[in-house]
């Protein structure tokens, strides 16, 4: 949009392009000048040199064209553009529908092929995990809190989607990778709700209730969609069982991996009077043979000293 174009000419991208273009022109000019100065090419003069140079140039141009075409195809972010074309009302309705399982197994259920909602849900889960880790003073020894949270959430979303897509390929299920990503991404909405509530209200019974109810609903929704797109009882069982197990166990893992520390702190602050750390009395071993003092005498002396000190 013109509004956002940098008309002052001082943006880095514009200057970068300008410099690139100028440099290329200079290089071309230099190359042309060098060509005109001497007719040699790799030691070959005359007609042979010119022919070799032309062949080499053509090969170079062809290679460069191929590489730039491949780069523009795969590194072009625009191929993802259609998957981010959504309205707020659509996202809202898809979020609500992700908690409502539909029992329609004879006809493939529709899956919204978009990536905005799943991506935002994964980032929300990262934020909730970070919040949970900060409130429970979790210390990550090898890594950072942010790295752990991002790695866990994105690893689950991308990894489990790929794995289930692979299983779906084996079981001949009618689902694409994009649809799997969208399905699993929206399935994380239940996880976000459960974790957001249970990281702030620390009750095990409440967590188990939410785990079964909310986690179960989102899992059932995904299972119903997959069942409608798979033929054969064995295949359905394999695919849906794997997904259900992974989804429910992930929620358990997220809760307990960052919940233990909170529990520990709560017990310390609110639990019954815990006696101070007690030292277990041990006998002094006979470790000094040179002193020739028997162990029993040493131990008796030590105990007498301890009793005397305690009484004072």
């Amino acid at each position, binding site marked *: 949009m013109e*509004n956002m174009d940098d008309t002052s000419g001082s943006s880095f991208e514009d200057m970068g392009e300008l410099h690139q273009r100028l440099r290329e022109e200079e290089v071309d000019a230099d190359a042309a000048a060098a060509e005109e100065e001497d007719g040699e090419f790799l030691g070959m003069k005359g007609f042979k040199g010119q022919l070799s140079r032309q062949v080499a140039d053509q090969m170079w141009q062809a290679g460069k064209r191929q590489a730039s075409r491949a780069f523009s195809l795969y590194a072009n972010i*625009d191929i993802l553009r259609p998957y981010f*074309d*959504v*309205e707020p009302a659509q996202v809202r309705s898809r979020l609500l529908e992700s908690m409502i399982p539909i029992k329609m197994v004879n006809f493939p259920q529709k899956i919204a092929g978009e990536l905005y909602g799943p991506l935002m849900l994964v980032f929300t889960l990262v934020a909730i995990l970070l919040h949970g880790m900060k409130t429970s003073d979790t210390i990550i020894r090898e890594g950072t809190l942010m790295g752990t949270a991002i790695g866990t959430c994105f690893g689950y979303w991308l990894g489990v989607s790929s794995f289930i897509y692979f299983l779906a390929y084996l079981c001949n299920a009618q689902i694409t990778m994009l649809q799997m990503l969208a399905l699993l991404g929206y399935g994380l909405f239940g996880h976000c709700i459960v974790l957001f509530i249970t990281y702030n209200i620390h009750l095990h019974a409440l967590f188990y209730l939410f785990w079964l109810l909310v986690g179960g609903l989102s899992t059932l929704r995904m299972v119903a969609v997959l069942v409608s797109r798979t033929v054969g009882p064995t295949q359905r069982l394999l695919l849906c069982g794997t997904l259900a197990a992974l989804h429910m166990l992930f929620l358990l893992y997220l809760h307990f991996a960052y919940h233990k520390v909170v529990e520990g702190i709560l017990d310390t602050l609110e639990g019954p009077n815990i006696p101070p750390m007690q030292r277990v009395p041990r006998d002094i071993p006979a470790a000094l043979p040179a002193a020739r003092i028997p162990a029993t005498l040493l131990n008796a002396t030590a105990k007498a000293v301890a009793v005397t000190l305690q009484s004072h």
Partner: protein
Amino acid sequence: MSNLGQFDTDFYQSNYTIDNQEQSCNDSNAYGNLYGSGKILLKFIFRAYILSLFFLFSELGINFDHIWQKTLTVLNPLKPADGSIMNETDLTGPVLFCVALGATLLLAGKVQFGYVYGISAIGCLGIHALLNLMSSSGVSCGCVASVLGYCLLPMVILSSFAIFFSLQDAFGIVSALVIIGWCSLSASKIFISALDMEGQQLLIAYPCALFYGLFALLTVF
């Protein structure tokens, strides 16, 4: 003495446009001519310094009036934004606000400049990618950085609260949520007016809220 008065007159008739109303050195100064001339010299040096700073800033393209206008736009999230104010990529204000955030965090006992810069850079890249995907026309990374940086100002206010009292209680959480909403509303308002994406303000406000939520986490904890 009269020579000194002469010198005074010659000095204040120069081309400089600085207002001379605070001129206090005059012949009635009881501390003598030397002290009076010293004060004049000091004022001259100070004013020359201010002028040179003014010329330096205009040479560098730093326009304090624009910075102030954009700051006022951010501070009032309900006022409709003019898309043309983001035509020029101005990173002076954003960098100033990032340094101010780091400084207020430092005053609260947290040395987290690196986190502020790192989160800003990575967040800008992420939101730049998202806006390029969602908008019909592209947007440059500098503009995104400029908008996000300006809308960081309310977070500086939150971190200045954190200097005086802890934000880990209910009041702190509520104020953090309010400030996050304020920042993300301002940023999304400017983005949709500049990118012509009416009806998608919530979709842009949410990733901005996540971005500013990271800063709030830094500030609160």
